[in-house]
């Protein structure tokens, strides 16, 4: 019997030691992130019968369990993924927000107004050289501001891309680690430390890409993305991939097409094309969707827009991406589909080596397309890149393209302070034999059928002759050169040629000078002759070299009815200043707008502000939710040092009591021995 007491006391002592060790471990881990506090569970041992009585045999520690609420955890994972998505987007939206702030002293709106003001000074004093120098300064500042803004946006896009790649790598590492943890937990289901480490890794993975967790019976977990793609299943894994622009095809079985789709350019939209009529290249037509097939692009009347599939010569440009087919044989069937993802995207690696596109996508109404990633940092980064940063860059480029075109088309019909002996274009053609509308000119599609009028002067500045050259958009540059050189009125006083870079050159004969009278075909602005700006988007905008070198080349006025420039003529300057308030066509395709340049810029800034403000509000809401669930989980699972100190005291006393029991049984034994 004494032995029973002795063994009970001994096991009580051991139990107390285990409990004390557990408490110490909890206290030491009070600040460890993701640590799940453990509690020891006692159960009473079975009783034995002594002297006809049932006597208990003490207690033993049956298990050490971690306190963890998996239901609260699932809710926390959802809101944490949402919070991380909003925070990731907010980080960059905030940067854009501060960069694009327009106050009264600085910003693009101010430099644009300074540019109009400088032209306005030329209205009242067209020949003033100081006003011209001031205009040159204002124009160079404007060009610099626009290209700086574009560069910042491009750098931001690259930074986002780098962060996406790093996050994808981190996610893949976590996926592998979770799989390993699964394997070791399957081998040892009671390893609470391993389980809490795995749970922490799941939280980390969830922050990157929102996940759902399914617990299996053997203690392992299956991790799926919120859209249902398996990432970890036991110890097998599927990785995420961050891939460059690509196109995929899904042809029907009875489609006999053997060629492939080619594309160039980039866009923040995913372009889905589906064939609506069968046929070979040049005949078959297709419709286009930008939201995965939910809605199809329509023209102004509401009818679905159809494009003809054709070779490179008749390539179609949709949303900034040029698409053509290089098929040799075969015909498309109705229902053949292609997806052109002209941007880097997020993919899920299926087991067979295929890549499934899970890049976040926003539909036309602003809601998310199903089947694509919606939670986590990755979703936020893609969304801010594709819905805010890249569209802002596109809008900036559209704005600059229109600014350059409108100023140039007015300026090219004016005359500078001195008549010219030669003019060189600033834009080059790729093929001088191809039609001007399709030969590589940035503004080639703006040439219309019209005529160019030139005037020649002799050495004293008197008018010798005028000539009219007819231009059609289907003419090639070589045709224009030939028309000028064979023009009877010019009679060799002016010769045209194409230089080695593919630019048009006009040369006057010795002793002759010339000027532009008018141009109703837009060819001068398209080829870059007599223009003010060079370049065609925000990266390339610059003041023409010839004007930067000599401001007398700035055309403030135009030739009068007598083909001479009056010193007070300010038509071009007045026209350019009027641009500030007039509505122009900016952009093309689904983002075309008719508005003044200043209002377009205001709308851009407002869009950035709304996006930043929306992300901020959503982040705050998500933060409240996430914090609530975090606190719920924390109150179950985290260590309260005071509580552990109470337990410490308790188990210490239990230890002391157990030690006392041993002392008592020892004395009892001694008493018995003393009796002998």
């Amino acid at each position, binding site marked *: 019997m004494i032995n029973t007491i002795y063994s009970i006391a001994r096991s009580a002592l051991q139990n107390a030691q285990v409990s004390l060790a557990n408490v110490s471990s909890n206290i030491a881990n*009070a*600040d460890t992130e993701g640590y799940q506090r453990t509690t020891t569970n006692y159960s009473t041992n079975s009783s034995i019968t002594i002297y006809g009585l049932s006597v208990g045999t003490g207690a033993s520690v049956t298990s050490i369990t971690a306190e963890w609420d998996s239901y609260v955890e699932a809710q926390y994972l959802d809101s944490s993924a949402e919070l991380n998505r909003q925070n990731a987007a907010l980080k960059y*939206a*905030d940067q854009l*927000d*501060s960069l*694009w*702030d*327009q*106050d*009264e002293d600085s910003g693009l*709106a101010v430099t*644009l*107004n300074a540019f*109009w*003001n400088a032209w*306005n*000074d030329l*209205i*009242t*004093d067209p*020949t003033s050289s100081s006003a011209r120098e001031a205009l040159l300064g204002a124009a160079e500042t404007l060009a610099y501001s626009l290209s700086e803004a574009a560069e910042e946006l491009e750098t931001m896009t690259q930074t986002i891309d780098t962060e996406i790649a790093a996050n994808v790598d981190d996610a893949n590492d976590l996926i592998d680690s979770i799989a390993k943890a699964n394997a070791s937990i399957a081998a040892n289901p009671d390893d609470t430390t391993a389980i809490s480490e795995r749970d922490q890794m799941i939280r980390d993975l969830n922050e990157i890409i929102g996940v759902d967790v399914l617990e299996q019976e053997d203690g392992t977990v299956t991790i799926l993305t919120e859209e249902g793609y398996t990432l970890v299943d036991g110890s097998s894994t599927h990785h995420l991939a961050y891939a460059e622009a690509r196109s995929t095809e899904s042809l029907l079985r009875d489609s006999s097409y053997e060629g492939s789709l080619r594309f160039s350019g980039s866009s923040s939209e995913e372009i889905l094309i589906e064939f609506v009529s069968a046929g070979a290249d040049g005949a078959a037509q297709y419709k286009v969707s930008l939201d995965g097939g939910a809605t199809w692009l329509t023209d102004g009347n509401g009818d679905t827009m159809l494009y003809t599939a054709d070779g490179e010569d008749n390539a179609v440009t949709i949303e900034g991406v040029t698409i053509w087919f290089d098929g040799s044989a075969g015909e498309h069937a109705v229902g053949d589909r292609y997806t052109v993802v002209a941007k880097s995207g997020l993919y899920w690696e299926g087991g067979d080596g295929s890549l499934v596109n899970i890049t976040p996508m926003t539909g036309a109404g602003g809601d998310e397309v199903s089947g694509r990633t919606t939670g986590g940092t990755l979703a936020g980064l893609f969304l801010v890149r594709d819905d805010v940063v890249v569209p802002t860059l596109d809008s900036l480029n559209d704005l600059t393209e229109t600014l350059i075109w409108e100023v140039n088309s007015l300026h090219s019909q004016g005359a500078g302070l001195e008549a010219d002996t030669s003019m060189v274009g600033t834009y080059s053609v790729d093929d001088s034999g191809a039609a001007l509308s399709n030969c590589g000119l940035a503004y080639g599609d703006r040439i219309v059928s019209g005529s160019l009028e030139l005037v020649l002067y002799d050495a004293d500045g008197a008018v010798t002759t005028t000539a009219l050259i007819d231009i059609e958009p289907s003419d090639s540059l070589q045709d224009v050169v030939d028309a000028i050189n064979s023009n009877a009125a010019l009679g060799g006083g002016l010769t045209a040629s194409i230089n080695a870079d593919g630019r048009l050159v006009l040369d006057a004969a010795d002793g002759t000078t010339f000027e532009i009278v008018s141009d109703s075909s837009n060819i001068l602005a398209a080829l870059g002759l007599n223009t003010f700006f060079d370049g065609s988007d925000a990266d390339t905008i610059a003041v023409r070299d010839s004007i930067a070198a000599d401001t007398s080349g700035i055309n403030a006025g135009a030739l*009068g009815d*007598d083909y001479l420039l*009056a*010193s*007070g*003529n*300010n038509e071009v300057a*007045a026209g350019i*200043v*009027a641009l*500030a*308030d007039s509505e122009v066509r900016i952009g093309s395709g689904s983002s075309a707008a008719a508005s003044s340049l*200043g*209002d377009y*810029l*205001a*709308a851009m*800034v*407002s869009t*950035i*502000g*709304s996006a*930043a*403000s929306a992300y*901020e509000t959503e982040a705050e809401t998500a933060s409240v939710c996430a914090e609530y669930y975090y*606190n719920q989980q*924390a*109150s*179950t*699972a*985290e*260590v*309260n040092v*005071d*509580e552990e*100190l*109470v337990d410490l*005291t308790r188990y210490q006393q239990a230890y002391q009591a157990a030690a006392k029991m041993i002392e008592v049984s020892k004395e009892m034994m001694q008493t018995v021995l003393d009796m002998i």
Partner: protein
Amino acid sequence: MRVSTSQIFSASLSQINSALYDVTRLNLMNSSQKKINTPSDDPAGMASVISLRDYSSSLDRYTDNCTVAGNYLSEADSVLSQISETVTSILELAEQGSTGTYTSDQLQMMAEEMEGYLETLMSLANSTFGDDYLFGGDELDSSAFSMGLGVSVTGDGLTSSASFLSVSGSIDSAVMVRFTEDGTVGTDALDYEYSLDGGETWTGATLASGTSTLDLGSCQVELAAGIAVNAAGDDEEGTEFLVRDAVYYEGSGKAMSVTISDGVSVDMTSVGSAIFGGLDSTGTAYSGANLFEAVAKCLACMEVGDADGVAACLDGISAGQERMLAGASSVGAREVKVTSFESSLSVISEVATNSISSLEDADATQILVELEQANYIYEAVLSSASDIMQMSLLDYL
């Protein structure tokens, strides 16, 4: 509800952060005195502010143009009033000379005074504002009028000024020219004579056949080939004309216009030929009332002692004066237009500035009060957080 130790610390931290964020935000608004510091503060408001600033900037441009145009027009206005005084003097002198009570010597002395008036008129019409000529249309750099030679037909025969192709050279005073035999210019050899002293002495010359330029000593007159001429005597029948001073208009036919408001522009300079007349570059007189031509004709008649000729010019000078006054009132009307636009622009500009301010500026008093409150809250949070963080069971064990 159970609270873990790290929850206590992280909750305190987040509360401190959020109170501090409020303080910082209000400080920023206080230092910039603006409600909208970034577009996300008020996206629609920011767009309105940018548009209003663009509008305000275009109003400033219009105002600048108004100021410049107003300066040019008021200078033209004061020049025209000086011109008006000169024309009144011319009329008085011409009336005197037309009475027929003066001898030709006296008329020639009056002619010198008239010549002075004509030169004054021309130099006033060539007035500048800075370096820009006011009456040359949009030719600002070169003078609007210059002195040259013209022709007045006094006898029968040549009636159209298209008969005279060009006049070159210089004269001291009007030259009388008449043909002394009939014939056709360019075909026949023709005798003619000219007088440099008002008809007292005549110099004879012959126009060779096949030529059509008359040599008059210091000047030459080219006639159109194929016109018929008749002999003239002292009875004023036959082909007879005067070569005299004339004022040529060198400017352009279009005034320089500047935009002073949306879709509204005003002519900043004036087309001199529409106000003062004169001859165009081909030597043809401008149609309608022509002040310079009337005065020049009158001068020539005085120089040759022709009082009846002077009387015939009076109507022309009066008509020219009326046209000049109409031009002056057009300048005045433009000045009034510019002034009224300028004042309405300044009113609109102020309204725009106020609109911008109401959208953008923060209420200073409200911000200060909110800032005080945020500071107080922040201090309270700091104090309570530090109390909680220090409490621990260890103090009591």
